[in-house]
């Protein structure tokens, strides 16, 4: 993990060769060629430190948490709660009471819909989202609307893939009970200037949920500076394990919300006459949690912090700039989503070559990209496309991998174009 070295001048850059050695999977081949993993927006890869932290826990300290007085239970509890503190510090929440472990971004949003929205919303109330959202930030709200009679409002986007702020502001009203927005678009990479959107919502006293699944892995996120009310993200997109994610919630809101699921760990006392719920954040963590997942997430945070989120963002931005330049040389390639502020995600189509065929042809060159609708079918519909190809980069990717992507695209055109 000594992957930072001083480059020319006083701005230390990442030592990508050293970083790549931290990721065991990057050594493998696909169809006889070195893996070029360019599907990081779907899920990133894991460094050895994360895998080791989870193995070490299972080999040495596993027991259930918050229950036993024996040594292993105490060690497991300390590791689990230690991970929660790492998350708190990483996103600058005020308190670990505001850090709820969930399965992932999807579960976090469903929790807010069912616990915050369902008891409080009714006919005439509105939930405001954008056209850019991932299905995980659409469907839970549609379900909530069916349950409560509330209405879902959708702020439109522009051809560039930016959310139309004026249209969003015009849709905000006293009827709006919640705003739910992506921080970064998974399908297009657009970074939404959420400060503006949050300020407009707050001016009307409307709480804001941010879907941060694509933001947390790639930029410094400070929930207090953002002044959002809920923030959801997943471990597996930030070098952590699958099956673990986080819901940040403002303490005053979480306190007022009823539990979402009932069971062990979320109670203080149970009798058939009356059950007393546990305090935050345990009120929302019924049942044995993903202890190893949380510990792995904590290790992922340690790893990312050892590199530095600013350096990660700079490395990924350099890859984005290079990819845009090189991809522009491919005849018939059209970029989908051209916002000025983007994460390292490039969505595109190639004339006469369907994205699904691109996916297969690129796989034969060892290049892994995502093809399809990216769980954002309204975005595809907006652009009149059934699907796009999407290359998404992480700090461990290289220019050479982008060159291989571009070469494989030329090959695909020759084969099918």
């Amino acid at each position, binding site marked *: 993990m000594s992957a930072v070295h001083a480059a020319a001048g006083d701005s230390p850059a990442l030592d990508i060769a050293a970083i790549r050695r931290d990721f065991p999977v990057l050594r493998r081949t696909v169809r006889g060629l070195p893996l070029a993993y360019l599907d990081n927006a779907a899920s990133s890869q894991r460094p050895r430190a994360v895998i080791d932290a989870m193995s070490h826990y299972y080999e040495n300290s596993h027991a259930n948490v918050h229950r036993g007085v024996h040594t292993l239970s105490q060690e497991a509890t300390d590791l689990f709660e230690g991970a929660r503190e790492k998350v708190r510090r990483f996103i600058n929440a005020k308190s670990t009471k505001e850090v709820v472990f969930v399965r992932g971004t999807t579960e976090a949003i469903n929790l807010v819909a069912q616990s915050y929205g369902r008891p409080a919303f009714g006919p005439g109330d509105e939930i405001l989202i954008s056209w850019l959202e991932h299905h995980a930030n659409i469907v839970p709200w549609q379900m909530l609307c069916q349950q409560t009679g509330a209405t879902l409002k959708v702020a439109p986007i522009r051809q560039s893939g930016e959310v139309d702020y004026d249209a969003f502001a015009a849709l905000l009203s006293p009827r709006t009970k919640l705003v739910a927005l992506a921080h970064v678009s998974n399908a297009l990479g657009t970074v939404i200037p959420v400060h503006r959107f949050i300020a407009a919502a707050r001016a009307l006293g409307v709480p804001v949920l941010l879907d941060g699944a694509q933001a947390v892995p790639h930029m410094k996120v400070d929930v207090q500076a953002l002044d959002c009310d809920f923030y959801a993200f997943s471990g597996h997109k930030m070098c952590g394990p699958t099956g673990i994610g986080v819901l940040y919630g403002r303490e005053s809101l979480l306190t007022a919300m009823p539990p979402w699921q009932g069971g062990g760990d979320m109670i203080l006392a149970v009798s058939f006459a009356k059950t007393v719920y546990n305090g935050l954040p345990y009120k929302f963590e019924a049942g044995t949690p993903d202890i190893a997942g949380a510990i792995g997430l904590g290790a992922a945070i340690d790893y990312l912090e050892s590199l530095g989120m600013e350096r990660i963002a700079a490395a990924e931005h350099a890859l984005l700039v290079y990819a845009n330049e090189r991809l522009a040389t491919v005849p018939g390639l059209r970029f989908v989503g051209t916002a000025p502020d983007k994460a390292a995600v490039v969505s595109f189509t190639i004339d006469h070559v*369907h*994205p*699904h065929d691109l996916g*297969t042809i690129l796989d034969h060159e060892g290049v892994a990209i995502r093809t*399809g609708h990216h769980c954002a079918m309204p975005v595809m519909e907006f652009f009149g496309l059934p699907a796009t190809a999407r290359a998404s980069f992480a700090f461990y990717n290289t220019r050479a991998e982008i060159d291989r992507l571009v070469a494989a695209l030329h090959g695909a055109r020759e084969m099918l174009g």
Partner: protein
Amino acid sequence: MDLKDLYRDVIVDHNRHPRNFREIPDADRRADGFNPLCGDKLTVFVKLDGDRISDLSFNGSGCAISVASASLLTESVKGKTIAEAEALFSQMHQLLTRDDDAIDVTALGKLGALSGVREFPARVKCASLCWHTLDAALHQQEQVSTE
């Protein structure tokens, strides 16, 4: 597994120039097929003369495998009876999913060009979408999805 086993010349040709790629406005049967994984959408149109398929066409959008497969389907099935079409569907299903040589590929004519698909499990649904859609049309279901 060579890419050329998947994208054979016949497939590439039928993708570039799909046959019977049109609507039949007075179709007796039609059905929409949808593959949510990749966004392929096909509509199959059937014109019947008794139990014989007198005309058959498709339109929509999809990957090279799904477009070529649909194009080859229309050429192969046109003129056949419903029972013959269903027997062919069953053979195609085996061709696309089975590892053994139970199917006589040469007897399938141009449809045999799709035999390479079974080496690419992620693409089997692309090739079979049109067949499921035809089956739905013949059974008067309006929609079919590969999921």
